[in-house]
């Protein structure tokens, strides 16, 4: 199948989605990230892999954490980083997304890190770059609508590999608002591609997309059953606005059924790890005792995120 992320030699040219990427590329990214881990421990935290290149952070949607980690990662690769606060610039004046891209390409951008509220926006940019013959300009998706957040998916895989070593013996549960979650979709594709035999989705029917089974996922509505004997539990953020419609009655009721408490965690394997893409809502999807407990690996995820983003950027835009 045609995959707009790969160039004609089958190498990664853009990172738009985990879906459709072969296992060898996911492994290549994780291995490269591992080699960058020691860079962050150095006195001088820099490698010259993207020296002279310009990385544009194009955040059409607000984000602090993701944008910051991309910025740190790009700087550690010696790139020039330009942060564009799109809400206050051209698009607010009516410029189209692709006009913005054309202008930045004219400023010799080498890599776009894009976050956008519409699913598929980074694909549109990548296809446009191909159309105008700029295969030297690359796109990394930093989250598009509900669709994908591939670097988060990869850092989650890095975290799992770091603690669990082997993907092929694991039972992984993803809990919460999967319907609106780009992280969940990227995690599901990454987990199935890397050979995890059992991926579970846990949540109420209102927060689960239809036909999840077609993605190779086992659906659970009862959290106690869903996390039983799991090796990894990935908790998702529940946004407050979900309480405004008819999806959920209240944060309290949600927490009683789907919040991760020490009692529920005890049902998972004793050495299970607890992950969360952040920012967390304590007392909504996760109990503080779990968030701060010994099984949580939420802060290491953030650290690994920098190495993973360095790996992705160096692979797509490196020489």
């Amino acid at each position, binding site marked *: 199948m045609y995959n707009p992320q790969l160039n004609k030699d089958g190498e990664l040219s853009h990172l738009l989605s985990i879906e459709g990427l072969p296992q060898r590329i996911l492994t290549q990214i994780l291995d490269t990230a591992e080699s960058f881990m020691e860079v962050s421990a150095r006195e001088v935290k820099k490698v010259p892999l993207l020296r002279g290149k310009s990385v544009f952070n194009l955040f059409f949607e607000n984000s602090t954490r993701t944008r910051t980690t991309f910025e740190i990662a790009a700087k550690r690769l010696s790139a020039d980083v330009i942060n564009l606060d799109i809400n206050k610039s051209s698009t607010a004046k009516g410029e189209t997304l692709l006009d913005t891209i054309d202008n930045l390409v004219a400023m010799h951008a080498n890599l776009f890190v894009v976050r956008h509220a519409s699913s598929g926006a980074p694909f549109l940019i990548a296809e446009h770059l191909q159309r105008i013959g700029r295969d030297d300009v690359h796109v990394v998706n930093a989250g*598009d609508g*509900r669709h994908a957040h591939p670097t988060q998916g990869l850092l989650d895989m890095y975290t799992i590999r770091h603690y669990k070593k082997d993907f092929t013996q694991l039972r992984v549960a993803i809990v919460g608002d999967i319907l609106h979650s780009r992280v969940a979709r990227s995690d599901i594709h990454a987990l199935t591609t890397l050979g995890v035999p059992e991926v579970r989705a846990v949540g109420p029917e209102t927060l689960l997309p239809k036909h999840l089974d077609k993605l190779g996922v086992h659906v659970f509505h009862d959290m106690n059953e869903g996390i039983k004997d799991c090796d990894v539990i990935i908790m998702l953020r529940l946004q407050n606005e979900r309480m405004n419609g008819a999806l959920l009655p209240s944060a309290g009721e949600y927490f009683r059924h789907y919040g991760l408490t020490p009692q529920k965690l005890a049902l998972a394997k004793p050495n299970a790890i607890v992950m969360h893409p952040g920012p967390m809502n304590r007392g909504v999807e996760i109990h503080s005792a779990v968030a701060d407990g010994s099984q949580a690996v939420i802060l290491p995820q953030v650290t690994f995120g920098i190495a993973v983003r360095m790996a992705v950027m160096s692979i797509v835009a490196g020489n």
Partner: protein
Amino acid sequence: MNIVIENGRVIDPKHGVDRSASLYIADGKVAALGEAPAGFVAEQRIDASDCVVCPGLIDLGARLNSIEAELAAAVAGGVTSVVVPPDADPPLDEPELADRLVHRGAEIGKARVLPLGALTLGLKGERLAELAGLKKAGCVAFSQANAPVVDTEALLRAMEYAATFGFAVWLQPQDYWLSRNGIAHEGEVASRLGLAGIPVAAETIAIATIVQLVRDTGCRVHLTRLSSESGVDLVRQARNEGLPVSFDIGVHHLLLTENDIGFFNPHARFCPPLRTQKDRLALSEAAAGGLAAICSDHTPVGVDDKLLPFGEAKPGATGLEVLLPLTLKWAEAAHVPLPLALARITSAPAEVLGLESGHLAVGAVADVCVFDPCTTWQLTPEALKSRGKNSPWLGYLMAGKVKMTLVGGKVVFGG
């Protein structure tokens, strides 16, 4: 002017005609088929060798954003009558606007323009438009286009009022609440791509409501652009019950499914959305079985309106110039004989409209399409007369080329 179209394969689906014959046209009407009428002297002879000669196509849904270009596109596609939905800017909710549109169409003198009047003022679904006045100005029926009537009482009253005068109401069956946030069929593809879904229930709930109101009011209703198997089943039941309900299918829905969205292809965004293969097959079966008419749902949009992320791109595709080739493509794939396929875009829509046209019997208006079913052409922006260059088929080869189109016995395209 006396015209004879010679050497062609004449297909008149309504009368079961399919033979090599000459078609004689005089005074804007069909004068004879086969033998020349007594004393007929042809002023123009048209050679239709290797071509099919059929009634001009009647398109049940085409938006004419720039009327001259779109009417030229219509006749280039063999379409001799176009039904225009009322969702223009401004909406067609006043007799004057309808009057102007009809006159402008006549002035241009290509395809016949059959406007649908707005059912409610501003298509807001609240207050009734002046239906009788609109009818007098030339509106053939009344519609909301894709705009909802959220208030069921308003819909009931509109149908009662229309029934009073014997007017037909055309409705797009799509429940407002279940479709307002959606951009794709609520299925596997939408789940995978993270696109907000529109469930099939959006269609079936609307149809169930409308059918019940037809039962209560006796209003004649035409449902536009069905998209689902369950929707087709509901309409079939209503028809079996003897209710005055008909429906049409946009030609793209006969050929494409949710899978054609691929990686967010904005050209695969339609209203209603493309659904599953099973739905597509049910629609195809309904068309093949003579239950539904096929239309282009011609929706020309600017290039920039498609160069956007899937959910922000405008739905719809250009249709007038591909209605015939896509219908032929569907017929071939679904093993539908050519005369039956042509019936879906000629006599079937005429029946929906209660028109006298759509056939080639002696005395019928000479709205005729002459096309070569085998000649192929590549769909490129340049190949289209329509201002709408938006199509999921850009770059594809289309089989079936219109050679000549006649409206009222006058050559308006080709020749």
